[in-house]
């Protein structure tokens, strides 16, 4: 991993007596694309606002490149933000919007003109200098907001659900654009979203948050394939979360049936939760399955069929390109390495666990 750039140290924050962030610790590295992912109210936006300087934590500190910036006002921080609703200045044209930060820093006219050209080229909107923000589409406005932020050469760009207001097609295009821009600029992106697909597509590192706690930090692959608890498994993608018992290393009893798995170190006869992704459930002939069941629902989803299979007293969610009509008897089989074992939360309160890294 490259050099550490930002360190959030034991950050707590509450609004009107309601705890939003509880002793949060997070390290962000140089040139990393970090996504804070979670449902609304999980504290992800508050974390971003603390980074940007728009909120002050009740306790804890924000360390930027070795310097404590906890109480530094936003106008003095070496970071820039792209706001959820673009926040373009409507009485200024595009060039003036982009030049705003540079003019405050008293850059020369030539320098500013160069930067405007460069930024518009980067966001693929050359020739838009004299347009007014109102005359642009949502996607274009969002790109201008990004251009306006990056001309100031921030070391970190904070993005607060920047694609939230765009339609699906545009959102997907912008995801690729953002990845390209980040590679071109070589700076750190901290991205906030509740959209797991966005997070999986763009990030180097995903930070899954819920109720003010970090649930898991990891690469998109590890978050998706090895969720550490039921919340992460449930939030990222569709999943079958089934209560089970770990009989011994590499052997788990699911719904009373023994399945081989690859996890070790959970102890003997210990209650656990298992996560099996719907695309990892294989439907085979009844005789070849570990469990047998019957298809109860069937929906066509475009790339695949989504089916529900009642087997062993549990309704399994299954994604498959092969059609099994409702009422068909099928066998359910899962490859050992597709069974992800998770510790059961010890109490209701600890469902959201704090993790230090």
């Amino acid at each position: 991993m490259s050099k550490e750039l930002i360190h959030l140290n034991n950050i707590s924050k509450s609004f009107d007596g309601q705890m939003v962030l509880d002793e949060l610790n997070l390290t962000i590295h140089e040139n990393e694309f970090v996504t804070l992912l979670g449902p609304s109210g999980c504290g992800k936006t508050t974390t971003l606002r603390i980074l940007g300087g728009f909120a002050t934590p009740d306790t804890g500190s924000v360390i930027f490149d070795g310097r404590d910036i906890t109480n530094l006002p936003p106008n003095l921080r070496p970071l820039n933000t792209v706001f959820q609703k673009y926040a373009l200045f409507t009485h200024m044209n595009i060039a003036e919007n982009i030049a705003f930060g540079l003019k405050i820093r008293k850059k020369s006219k030539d320098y500013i003109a160069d930067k405007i050209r460069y930024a518009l080229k980067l966001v693929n909107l050359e020739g838009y200098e004299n347009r007014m923000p109102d005359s642009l589409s949502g996607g274009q406005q969002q790109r201008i907001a990004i251009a306006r932020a990056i001309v100031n050469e921030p070391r970190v760009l904070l993005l607060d659900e920047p694609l939230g207001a765009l339609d699906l097609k545009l959102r997907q295009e912008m995801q690729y654009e953002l990845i390209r821009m980040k590679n071109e600029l070589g700076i750190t992106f901290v991205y906030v979203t509740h959209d797991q697909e966005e997070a999986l597509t763009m990030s180097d590192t995903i930070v899954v948050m819920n109720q003010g706690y970090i649930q898991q930090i990891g690469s998109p692959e590890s978050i998706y394939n090895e969720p550490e608890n039921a919340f992460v498994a449930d939030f990222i993608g569709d999943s079958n979360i089934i209560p089970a018992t770990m009989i011994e290393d590499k052997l788990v009893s699911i719904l009373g049936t023994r399945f081989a798995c690859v996890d070790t170190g959970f102890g003997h006869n210990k209650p656990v939760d298992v996560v099996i992704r719907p695309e990892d459930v294989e439907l085979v002939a009844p005789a070849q399955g570990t469990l047998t069941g019957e298809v109860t629902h069937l929906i066509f989803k475009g790339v695949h069929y989504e089916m529900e299979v009642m087997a062993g007293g549990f309704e399994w969610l299954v994604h498959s390109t092969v059609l099994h009509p409702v009422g068909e008897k099928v066998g359910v089989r899962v490859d050992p390495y597709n069974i992800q074992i998770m510790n059961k939360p010890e109490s209701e309160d600890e469902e959201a666990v704090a993790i230090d890294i």
Partner: protein
Amino acid sequence: MKNTAKKIYIALIFLFLYAPIATLMVLSFNASKTRAKWGGFTFKWYTQLIQNDDILKALGNTLLIALLSSVIATVIGTVACIAMNHMKKRTRTVMMGITNIPMLNADIVTGISLMLLFISFGLRFGFGTILLAHITFNIPYVILSVMPRMKQLNPSIYEAALDLGASPFNAFRRVVFPDLLPGILSGFLMAFTMSLDDFIITHFTKGAGVDTLSTKIYTEVRKGIKPEMYALSTIIFLSVLVLLLLVNAAPDKQDPRADKKQASRF
């Protein structure tokens, strides 16, 4: 047939609305001193009017008070809006209610209560007390026209300006203020108009020897109506009309979505 009826109906409405003012305007150009007969067209009353020092002094007072009171009320009202915008919703609703009450209050009540207040503070009645009174009744009108603008404001733009390196003052001046400007302008014009045509409150808060146009006309009329007064009233009517047109036009130019509620209050 139906259309003709519609047109006649509208014509009648306008006739009743504007006939008195039209009469006044016509009479202001009447060479004869009596109201009963037309003695030919003249500018005589207008020239006499400009030579009347008392009237000119009253005009000067009126304009000065209107300008000062509306400028000061605009500053206070705008600052009040910024503060109210940062309040919690319930406090803000209560505050808006409190600032709206003086507008609904009868002028005579406002006038007498201001007079009593000034007496109890031992203020000397004169230009100063009129000005204070006008500032007081103008502030709610400014708040009324700035507040909707304030609510439309995207709260992120202030933060975006800070984020791009602007100091809080600069962020307000360069980003928030231009967005509020149409509301501030129409508030200012509305306050100016209200001040210009106020009679009752001025009547109760002015001292001896100081007059605005409206109080001056009132005293003159009591002595018997002189045609100069027609001329003066015509001028006042026309200037208020122009101001009203400006109030109506100001927010539209900037933002076609801005509601016209403020102007239709008159």
